């Protein structure tokens, strides 16, 4: 049933709702696809075939009983392994959590289950979501469906590869500095980082609490919006969750797909292009801006002078918070324990466990963060980074006085080769150059495919003010309707 895996989520849901296909058939088609291609992609860390079929059967039974189905009922989904799932392995891509089965569901897990969305399994990721290539996974890298020798982006690379590789029409990612948008861009799909606080963080294994944000992946803007509506909304279990209604993103996606962009002011951020960006990426981006103009948008150039400090600020704030968040992995209550031989001291067991359980990137960031928070350095590093963050928020505020949305390339590069940048952390960190400002400001941003460079996908990033997630979807949908769809080469 090859055509079933190529349907959009919206079409799949419609066919299930009318009874044209069963949810079980849809789930099975995707499980078969995973069997066929995941050996090459390695998008999944754990496939829950039994659970998926059971969830699909429940949807079919509900339909047979004449009960109303929610909009994505029966549609398969790939879940990033950073999100806790009751009784299902949740490792966060780390050895330190190998074999851990949480006793509870994350709020988004529960919402997905309640909506009848069929969870196929848990996807690969950079360990504790630290990375831009999914090469930091303790379980080996994920491969880009466009070119198996290349990275699928990160840290949600397993999720983006699963969607791009037709293993699932939908996936959940998390974005701390760009980890939804950059993998979406380099695998040629759509990924949205919602406004900070729009989607509950309860049950997301924390990397950097003030930046972490779960969000949806889809192959179309509408699919992405449909999943956004399932997972978003206030959660009393998350103090930072916004107590406001969800922005009407599905309506915005439908509206965008059938209208032009007259009256919309699009700001091109001067600081997010130029030297350091691949020429093919810039060419594709320029063409995208032309398309927006041709759709009737008014294009202006805006300047955000503090964006150049976003990278430095991010690489102080995120490691600082991670050094504290990851302190709980201490071999006392769950996960790996090394050296507990009755001779080693408690400190030794903690130290041996962390040495064995954390990979080099995680250790690097814990050490940077511990240093940045230590007394005497706090003001110079963490405190200063928070000030920069405030300036970036002000840049956005000023820019949004001139434009309804801001645009930039999503990533300065197309997917690079696996192993190419592993030895150079700084070369790796600049992957997030374009995505970091919206992360630091907590504002929403979407990446939508805008063409190819060297045969590989390029993403267009569309940013909106806080809580105006619907604007991202509206502009992205209009753009999507105006450009040819990208389809990755067939996997052998």
């Amino acid at each position, binding site marked *: 049933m090859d055509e079933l895996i190529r349907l959009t989520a919206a079409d799949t849901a419609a066919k299930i709702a009318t009874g044209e296909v069963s949810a079980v058939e849809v789930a099975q088609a995707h499980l078969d696809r995973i069997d066929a291609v995941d050996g090459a992609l390695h998008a999944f860390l754990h496939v829950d075939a039994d659970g998926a079929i059971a969830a699909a059967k429940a949807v079919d039974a509900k339909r047979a009983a004449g009960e109303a189905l929610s909009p994505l009922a029966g549609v398969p989904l790939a879940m990033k392994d950073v999100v806790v799932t009751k009784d299902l392995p949740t490792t966060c891509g780390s050895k330190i959590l190998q074999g851990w089965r949480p006793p*509870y569901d*994350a709020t988004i897990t529960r919402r997905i289950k309640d909506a009848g969305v069929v969870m196929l399994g848990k996807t690969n990721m950079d360990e504790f979501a630290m990375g831009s290539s999914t090469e930091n996974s303790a379980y080996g890298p994920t491969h880009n469906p466009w070119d198996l020798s290349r990275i699928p982006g990160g840290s949600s690379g397993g999720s983006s590869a699963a969607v791009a590789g037709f293993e699932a029409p939908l996936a959940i990612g998390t974005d701390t500095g760009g980890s939804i948008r950059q993998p979406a861009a380099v695998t040629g799909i759509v990924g949205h980082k919602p406004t900070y606080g729009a989607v509950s963080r309860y049950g997301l*294994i*924390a990397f950097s609490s003030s930046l972490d944000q779960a969000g949806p992946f889809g192959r179309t803007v509408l699919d992405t919006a449909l999943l956004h509506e399932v997972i978003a909304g206030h959660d009393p279990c998350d103090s930072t969750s916004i107590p406001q209604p969800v922005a009407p993103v599905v309506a915005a996606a439908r509206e965008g797909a059938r209208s032009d962009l007259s009256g919309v002011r699009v700001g091109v951020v001067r600081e997010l292009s130029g030297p350091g960006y691949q020429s093919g990426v810039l060419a594709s981006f320029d063409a995208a801006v032309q398309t927006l103009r041709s759709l009737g948008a008014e294009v202006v150039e805006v300047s955000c002078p503090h964006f150049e400090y976003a990278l430095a600020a991010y690489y102080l704030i995120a490691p600082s918070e991670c050094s504290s968040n990851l*302190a709980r*992995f201490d071999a006392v*209550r769950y996960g790996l324990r090394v050296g507990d031989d009755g001779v080693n001291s408690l400190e030794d067991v903690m130290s041996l466990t962390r040495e064995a359980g954390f990979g080099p990137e995680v250790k690097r960031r814990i050490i940077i963060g511990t240093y940045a*928070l230590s*007394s005497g350095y*706090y003001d110079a590093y963490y405190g200063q980074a928070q000030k920069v963050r405030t300036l970036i928020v002000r840049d956005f505020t000023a820019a949004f006085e001139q434009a309804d949305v801001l645009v930039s390339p999503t990533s300065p590069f197309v997917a690079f080769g696996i192993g190419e940048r592993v030895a150079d952390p700084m070369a790796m960190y600049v992957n997030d150059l374009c995505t970091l400002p919206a992360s630091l400001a907590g504002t929403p941003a979407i990446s939508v495919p805008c063409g190819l460079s060297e045969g590989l996908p390029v993403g267009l990033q569309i940013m909106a003010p806080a809580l105006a997630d619907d604007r991202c979807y509206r502009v992205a949908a209009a753009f999507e309707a105006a450009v040819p769809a990208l389809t990755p080469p067939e996997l052998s």
Partner: protein
Amino acid sequence: MTLTYADVTSRYEPVFGLETHVELGTVSKMFCGCSTEFGAAPNTHTCPVCLGLPGALPVVNEVAIESTIKIGLALNCSIAPWCRFARKNYFYPDMPKNFQTSQYDEPLCVDGYVDVEVQGQTFRVGIERVHMEEDTGKNTHVGGATGRIHGADYSLVDFNRAGIPLIEIVTKPVPGTGELAPEVAKAYVTELRDILRTLGVSDVRMEQGSLRCDVNTSLNKPGEPMGTRTETKNVNSLRSVERAVRSEMLRQAGLLDAGTRIFQETRHFNESTGDTRPGRSKEEATDYRYFPEPDLVPVEADPDWVEQVRAALPELPAARRARLRESLGVSAEDMQQLSNAGVVELVGQTVEAGAPIGEARNWWLGYLAQKANEREVDAADLGVTPAHVARLVELVADGTLSVALARQAVDGVLDTGSDVDTVVAERGLKRVSDTGSLEAAADEAIAANPDVAEKVRGGKLPAVGALVGAVMKATRGQADAAAVKAILLEKLNGGPPGGGGVAAGGVGA
């Protein structure tokens, strides 16, 4: 030559400060909905949040915020319109997240004071801050002789206590108390305890650790700046607060006299000796790497709401004492005595429950004070309530109990936890004054002690005491001793000589 306390206070000026931790009496924990009930089976009151499981997030308990605001207001503090939690990072196996969510540089309540009276003088203890935090779990080290981690075979962790709301009340340094420093420190904690109890925000049981103090003490020579302080941790009785200050003053003065400098350090109080011993040195203190807790939004207490809380505060102990003194007509001296014994509230409540002030005072300063002393608890924690005492007074007044029986009833309340009427009924404590049974008992006593009876008949009247004792024993103390004596004398001599002499012993209503 031994240093006396008078030597110390003649040469040095003490400064003390207290950090008091109070477990709030909320139904649920600080950041999750788990129960705070004391004494449950280990790890039964836990959830992903208080276990710090990956992914779990805290949410602030609003009742704990309200309780803390009440405390701040009662301590004359300003309530911050905006405050935040911070993370205090350190590693310990009983701390689920390896950081404690606490308040650091942005506490909820700041800059207040408490006035306390010692020996007719009023001292103002400045309050630096009142802030919220969460308790940790509890480790039990099994095997090994000492119960400490060293030498233990294994350790067990109970997280029931992890996440219980704690508030910390920090005083400013208190100078100028001179030789009264230990008493002022104790009076402050006593006043604090009474305030917290009046507010109903904590059960303030020092022996269960729901109120515990760290005591900072320093000495300086007159006119010189404050000396280096030491911090005595986890002092958990009122008496120990006083002893801890006094013993640190003596210890530090000894060192200063010898020309040795005082190290800033943590010390532990030994309840049995009253001494302190060194703990970890502050000079190698952990760097806690505080930073604002990103998982919690700041607390913004609406000023209107704070005013509502203020308006609804109960009458606080100081005001209540003034009112009681006024309404009870107690002398300043009496009030001081009641205050020193920590029973002002108890006496007031006993009077409110219907007892005359004199009786209430006598019970709390007399037999109950004695019992509290024997049991080494504060009178308020004795287990005998003002309502119990009022009932006892009533029963004595109506002749149901003698004072001796009333004391037995107190013992019964202490032993069983039952109320007075139950104890009286169960133990059959009612006074026996029915003449028939007393006469029979008197006859038995005379028959059993013919030689004593003969002495009395022969005019040695004091010998009747032995017969009275025999009757009292036979009636298990429930007879009215005066009546018994009268009956015995009548039987042996045809009536009490001179119509008097029966009132000896002072027993009776």
